[in-house]
């Protein structure tokens, strides 16, 4: 009988994927974990209980990250959707699309470095509003391009149909276009949320250390060589997306079925 190697490789892959999550949780529970110990001498909720105290500022960071990412995701998804319609029905849509690809393809951190002068002049340096606007500028092209395939002939026909049935523009959006694009809107919201939630370089430049999102915190802890708090911030950074991913994926699958 031939022994199949596939199950072993698959199990190994699953372990490899799950390992980082387990390791980070373990590290966040640890303290005093020195070389060459394979396991920490202390495992407990000491670090986690510190979150609740304001000493580390992690709770505030979590809240401001959430505020920033939700704002960026909502604004860029909605504006991306509405503006993409005009862009992709436009006779010059190829040129417009290309223009949108420039900011999309450029590294956000370099973009931010070249934009920081203007943010400084507009008083958007080192505050939450500035970070939201800067992140919006990089999330918007993503959202816009995301909807390019939605505005096809068929959707145009739906719009025409609603018009001849007597619907105005507002009704077309509310009753037809939004419901038709519901799945895509949800995915776009999720993706732009992640773009913002994971953003570090641009945030560090525009926020100049005053706007402390979770990614900024992670990096600060790494610099301080405080790996336990670093891991803890990583956990806070990773688990909301996993929850979102779980719901998002389930939703996408239901639609496909």
């Amino acid at each position, binding site marked *: 009988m031939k022994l199949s190697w596939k199950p072993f490789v698959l199990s190994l892959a699953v372990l490899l994927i799950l390992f980082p999550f387990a390791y980070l949780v373990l590290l966040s529970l640890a303290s005093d974990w020195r070389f060459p110990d394979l396991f920490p001498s202390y495992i407990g909720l000491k670090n986690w209980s510190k979150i609740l105290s304001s000493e580390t500022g992690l709770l505030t960071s979590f809240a401001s990250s959430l505020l920033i990412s939700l704002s960026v995701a909502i604004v860029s998804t909605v504006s991306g959707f509405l503006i993409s319609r005009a862009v992709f029905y436009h006779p010059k849509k190829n040129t417009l699309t290309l223009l949108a690809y420039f900011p999309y393809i450029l590294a956000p951190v370099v973009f931010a470095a070249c934009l920081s002068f203007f943010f400084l002049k507009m008083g958007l340096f080192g505050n939450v509003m500035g970070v939201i606007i800067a992140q919006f500028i990089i999330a918007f092209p993503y959202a816009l391009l995301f909807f390019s395939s939605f505005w096809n002939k*068929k959707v145009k*026909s*739906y719009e*025409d*149909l*609603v*018009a*001849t*049935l*007597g*619907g*105005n523009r507002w*009704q077309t959006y509310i*009753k*037809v276009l939004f*419901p*038709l694009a*519901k799945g895509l809107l949800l995915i776009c919201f999720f993706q732009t949320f992640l773009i913002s939630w994971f953003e570090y370089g641009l945030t560090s430049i525009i926020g100049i250390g005053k706007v402390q999102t979770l990614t900024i915190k992670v990096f600060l802890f790494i610099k301080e060589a405080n790996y336990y708090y670093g891991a803890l911030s990583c956990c806070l950074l990773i688990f909301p997306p996993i929850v979102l991913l779980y719901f998002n994926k389930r939703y996408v699958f239901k639609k496909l079925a």
Partner: protein
Amino acid sequence: MFLEIQNIVKNFGQEQVVKNLSFSLDAKKTLSILGKSGCGKTTMLKTIGGLLSPDSGSIRLNGEDITHKKPEKRNIVYLYQEDLLFPHLNAFENIAFGLRLKNIPKSIITDRVNHMLKSLELENQSQKMPNQLSGGQRQRVSFGRAIITNPSLLLLDEPFGSLDAGTRHRMQGLFKNLSKEFEISSLFVTHDLKEAVLMGDEIGFMQAGNLKVYTDKNEFIADPETGVEEEIKFWGALAGLEKNVDLKKH
């Protein structure tokens, strides 16, 4: 006249798709228009429906000049070959769609939609989603959705083009009945010769952007351009052949 089209011209770039289109239609009548694909019939319908604006010419409906009116104000419904049912609404809500846009009281909508479902022989399908309906059923819902808004004019662009022969035949009968029941004025575009003759009170023939409307069916049949004569010859010859074969057998 109820609908009067005068000297409509529509170009796309260099190409003149509709050339100096003029015709008229009485109320509660159906003009069927025969034409091959690419002859400009879709452009003509979309121009009348207000989805495209003509380069020149005028459109009058019921005495009013509607040439520059927005599509949603014209009360003309344009129906595609595809049924274009809203995938997020069930059959009932698809039919009710146009009424809901107009903020008509719920009880009236329910009554009218139920009545329509009955006329369409779809009473038992009202709660089904579009993907649970057959091709013919979907096309019927699409008709109901248009007719229930009581449009002044219905524009049909190859409405049965994607249906199989049997379903198509039944739908033709159903549309005739609906036209009578709801007193519909319509332009019915098709590339099927038989369908054109069957559906229209009047018949037109469209070729390379020009539309010719015939005063009666005999004139339509007599015109060699329409292809009716050729069709008659073909079947005649075939029938003759069959006769010969039969004779030989005996």
